[in-house]
C-alpha cells in the first residue's frame, strides 16, 4: 500500500502548480504548509513507513520548514517507541482518537482501548515532547450522562490539551453499530441528549478558554488546526491514498477509488485511480455557504459577493431572512453567523440558503 501511495505522490507532484492561483478568496500558498495523516488509523503503520512517506513528500513538494504535520493516532498505538519514530519523521502534532474516558461508553462504541490508555497516551506524548495535541471526543452516546460528559471535558482540560474535536455520534446505515441498534442489542442514540450535550460543550468552552471555531472543533487561542482550517478556507489540497479527496482550489474536486486492492493495482499499472467532479457555479456557491456557516467567523458576504456577484448575494440574504427572523442566524459586520440556537441546525440552515 505504501508503495502505491508513494507512486501517487510522484505522479501528482505538479498538482499545486496546476492550481489556478488567483481565483480564490485567499491566495494559493506557493508552498505546502500542512500535512495530515488521517482517514482511519494511520498510527498502526510501522514507524519507518511514516518516515518514508514524509521524506518522499518533502523531496517532491515544497514543504515549509515549519509545516504542521499531524498524525491521527489511536491511544493504544501510542508507545514511547512509536512516538520517537513519528518525531523523527517530522510529525509535530497528534490527533488522538480518545472518544471518551468512560469505560462503558468506550465499550458501547466498540473501541479497542481502555480508559487508562486514553489518559496515558496523552501523557506519554507530552513526555516525549509532542505537546501539540488534539483529542477526539464523542458525545450524546447512551451511557454518557450529562455529568459524565462534563467529566470527559474536564479530564481533557486537566491533561492540558489545547485542541478538541467533539462529535455527536452519527450512526450510519449499514454499519455494525447500526445493525446492533436495529436488533435492539444496544440502546440507540438520543437526539435530545446530543443536542443537550452540544449546549453543555458550548457553555464549557466559554468557561474554560476554548474558542468554538467550527461546529465540531474547539481550541485555545493560537491552536486551531491549520490543516482543517485550510479545507474551510477553500484552499487547494492534495489527498493521497484510497478514497482520499483532492481540491484544486477552484472548481475541480477529485477522489481516489475506495477499494484498497484496486487502488494498489491501478497505481502499480502506472495510472491514477481518480474520479473527478467539476463544480457548477451553484455547487460552488452551496459549498461556500455550507462550509463557512459552520465556522465561528461565519459566511463572509463581501468575499461571497466578490466571487459570485451581487445578485447571488441578494438572493442569499433573501433566503436567510427566515433564519434571521427566527434567531438562528445573525448578520453582523458583513458576515452571516449561526447563533447558538442555529448551530444545532447548521445543515438544515445551509440547505435553506442553498441556491
Amino acid at each position, binding site marked *: 500500500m505504501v508503495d502505491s501511495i508513494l507512486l501517487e505522490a510522484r505522479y501528482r507532484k505538479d498538482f499545486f502548480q496546476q492550481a489556478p492561483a488567483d481565483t480564490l478568496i485567499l491566495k494559493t500558498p506557493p508552498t505546502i504548509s500542512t500535512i495530515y495523516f488521517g482517514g482511519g488509523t494511520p498510527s498502526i503503520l510501522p514507524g519507518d513507513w511514516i518516515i518514508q512517506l514524509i521524506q518522499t513528500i518533502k523531496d517532491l513538494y515544497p514543504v515549509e520548514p515549519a509545516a504542521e504535520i499531524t498524525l491521527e493516532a489511536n491511544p493504544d498505538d501510542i508507545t514511547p517507541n512509536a512516538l520517537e519514530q513519528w518525531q523523527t519523521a517530522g510529525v509535530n502534532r497528534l490527533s488522538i482518537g480518545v472518544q471518551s474516558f468512560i469505560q462503558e461508553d468506550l465499550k458501547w462504541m466498540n473501541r479497542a482501548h481502555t480508559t487508562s490508555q486514553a489518559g496515558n497516551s496523552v501523557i506519554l506524548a507530552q513526555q516525549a515532547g509532542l505537546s501539540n495535541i488534539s483529542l477526539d471526543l464523542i458525545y450524546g452516546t447512551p451511557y454518557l450522562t450529562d455529568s459524565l460528559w462534563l467529566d470527559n471535558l474536564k479530564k481533557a482540560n486537566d491533561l492540558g490539551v489545547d485542541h478538541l474535536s467533539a462529535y455527536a455520534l452519527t450512526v450510519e446505515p449499514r454499519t455494525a453499530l447500526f445493525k446492533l441498534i436495529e436488533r435492539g442489542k444496544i440502546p440507540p442514540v438520543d437526539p435530545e441528549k446530543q443536542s443537550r450535550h452540544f449546549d453543555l460543550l458550548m457553555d464549557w468552552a466559554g468557561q474554560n478558554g476554548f474558542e468554538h471555531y467550527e461546529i465540531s472543533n474547539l481550541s485555545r487561542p493560537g491552536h486551531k488546526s491549520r490543516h482543517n482550517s485550510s479545507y474551510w478556507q477553500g484552499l487547494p489540497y492534495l489527498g493521497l491514498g484510497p478514497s482520499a*479527496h483532492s481540491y484544486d482550489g477552484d472548481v475541480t474536486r477529485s*477522489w481516489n477509488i475506495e477499494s484498497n486492492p484496486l487502488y494498489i493495482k491501478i497505481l502499480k499499472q502506472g495510472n491514477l485511480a481518480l474520479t473527478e467532479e467539476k463544480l457548477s457555479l451553484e455547487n460552488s456557491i452551496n459549498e461556500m455557504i*455550507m*462550509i463557512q456557516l459552520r465556522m465561528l467567523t461565519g459566511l463572509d458576504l463581501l468575499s461571497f459577493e466578490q466571487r459570485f456577484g451581487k445578485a447571488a448575494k441578494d438572493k442569499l440574504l433573501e433566503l436567510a431572512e427566515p433564519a434571521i427572523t427566527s434567531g438562528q442566524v445573525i448578520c453582523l459586520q458583513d458576515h452571516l453567523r449561526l447563533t447558538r440556537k442555529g448551530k444545532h441546525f447548521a445543515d438544515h440552515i445551509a*440547505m435553506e440558503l442553498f441556491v
Partner: protein
Amino acid sequence: MKQIRNFCIIAHIDHGKSTLADRLLEHTKTVGEREMTNQVLDDMDLEREKGITIKSKAIQMEYAMNGTTYIFNLIDTPGHVDFSYEVSRALAACEGALLLVDATQGIQAQTISNLYLAIDNNLEIIPVINKIDMDGAMIPEVKDQIVDLIGCKEEEILLASGKTGIGIEEILQAIVDRIPAPTGEVTAPLQALIFDSVFNSFRGIIAYYRVFNGTIKKGDKIKFINTGQTYYADEVGKLGIGLQPTKEVKAGDVGYIITGIKNAKEVKVGDTITLTENPGTSIKGFEEVKPMVFAGIFPVVTEDFEELRDCMDKLQLNDASLTYELETSQALGFGFRCGFLGLLHMEIIQERLEREFNQTVITTVPNVSFIAYTTRDEKIIVNNPGQMPETTKLDRIEEPFIRAQIITQSDYTGNIMTLCLSKRGTLTNQTYLTQTRVELTFEMPLTEIVFDFYDKLKSQTRGYASFDYTPLDYRASDIVKMDILLNNEKVDALSALIHRSRAQDFGRKLCEKLKELLPRQQFQIAIQAAIGAKIIARENISAMRKDVTAKCYGGDISRKRKLLEKQKEGKKRMRQIGNVEVPQEAFLAVLKLDE
C-alpha cells in the same frame, strides 16, 4: 369508396388488441420490418412503460385481395375502464369492429360493455378468439360464450394469435367480406366528423376526422360547424405511420387536417367540419364526456400558474376527456379543479404534465361529484369539498350511484359479496353465464369504487374477476366533510367528502399516513382530522432536535453538499402551509392509505 373499410379493434383490457394490430400492419406491409416494435401503435412513453393503450390510434393500410386493393382505416382502442369514452369516439368513425376475446380468459366485463357500444353504433362485429397459441386456451368454451353473447353462428368466430400470426389472413379477408364499405356522396356538401385531435408543437393542432359526405381538399376554406370558426385547410392527408399529405380526402375515408390552429379550445372532438361554400349540416355529435372523479391540480410554485394553464390547454387538446376549471385554494393558491375519467386517467394526466410539459404539480384528494340541497332548496353541484354548504344551511346531500357488473368464477362469489356490501353496495342481479362463471350486478356509490375497489377486487379473487360500471343516478346519502388541520390550521386542499360511517376510520388512517409523509420540523406538528368542530383523529410529529453532521473535512464536503442539495430539491417541491412544510405527495396521501 367500395374499396374502403373503416373498423376498430375492441376488447377487454390486455386481450391483445395492440399486438393484433401489429400483425395487421406487418402483414399489409404498412410498417417495415425495421420500424416494427411490439405494440408499435402504443407510441407514448407512458403507454410503453405501463404496457397499456391510453389513447386510441388511427392508421391506414392497404390490402390486396383477388386483384383489388382495399384501403383499411384501423383504430386501435384502449381497454381500461377509464377510457371507454375513447372507444365510443372511435366507433362513430367506423362501420365495423373486431371484437377480441382472450382464449384463456373468455368474455370479461369490458368485452360486454364495448360490444354494446358497438351494437349501439350499428357496427358489423367480427368476433375473434385471440391468443390461441397459449397453453391455457379454452377455445370451445369461449366459442360458446361468444355465441351466447352476440347470437352469432359458431363458424363466424375467427381464431387468431397476435403473437404468432395465426389467423391474420382470415381476419383481413373477413374485414373485406363482412364489414360494409362506407356510404356517402363524394360530391355532396362536406360533412367530416372530428373523432380525435393531437397537439404538435411545430404544426399546431392536428384534427383527425372521418369524412361522411363530400370531399375536403388542400386549400379549402372550411368551417367547424359547432364552434362556427372558419379556417383554411393548410394540409390534409391520410394517417399512415406518421402523417402522409394528400391533395384531398373523400367521403368514406379517414384523414387529418392542419389549419394552423394553436388554441386548444377551438377544436372540439365531435364537431363537424364543412366548407364555407355550400355547407353541410352537423352530424349528430358525440355524447359529452362525463368526468367521474374530480381533483385539484396546482403548480408547486405559485408563480407557475400561467404556465400551467397553458399546458392544461395543450393537454386537453390531446386528451379531450380532460375537463378543468379555475379553482382557488387557501393552501395552494390558484390552480384547476379537473374532471377525470377515473384514477388511472388522473395519474396519467399528472405524469404527462410532468414529463411532456415539465410541470411540477400538486394533485389533491380526488372526489366524485355530489349534489347538495340547501335549506332554501338551492341545488349545488359539489365537485370540491370547499363547495359544500355549511351544515346549518344544508338540507340534504345526494351522491352518484353506479351499476357495477362483475364477472367471476363462482368460487369467489362469497368474497365479492362481502367486499361489495362493505362498500355500501346492494346486489341486484346474479346470472350464471356458464356453470362456473357468474355475472354479479351491484348498485353502489361511485365514490366507493373509484379509490381502492379494483385492487381489492383483484386480491379477493386472485385476479379472476373483471369489472365494469355505468353511472346510474343520484341518491340521498349521509356525506360529511372531513377536514385536516396542521397545527390547528385547516388545509382546504386536504379536505375530503366521505360517508359518515367511514369518517372515523378514514380520518385515523389519513393522519397516520400524513405523519409518515411530512418531514420533521424544528417544532412539533399536530395533525388532526375533524368533522366540523369535532376532532376525530390526531397524530403528532415531534420536533426535530438537531440537524447538524459532525465532521466536514476533505471528502465530507462533496458528500454533504450533494446530500443537502438533494434535500433542497425536495424542499422546492413542498408547499408551506402556515408554518408547516408539506411535500407534494402528501396531498395524495389518501390514495396510499392501504400501503
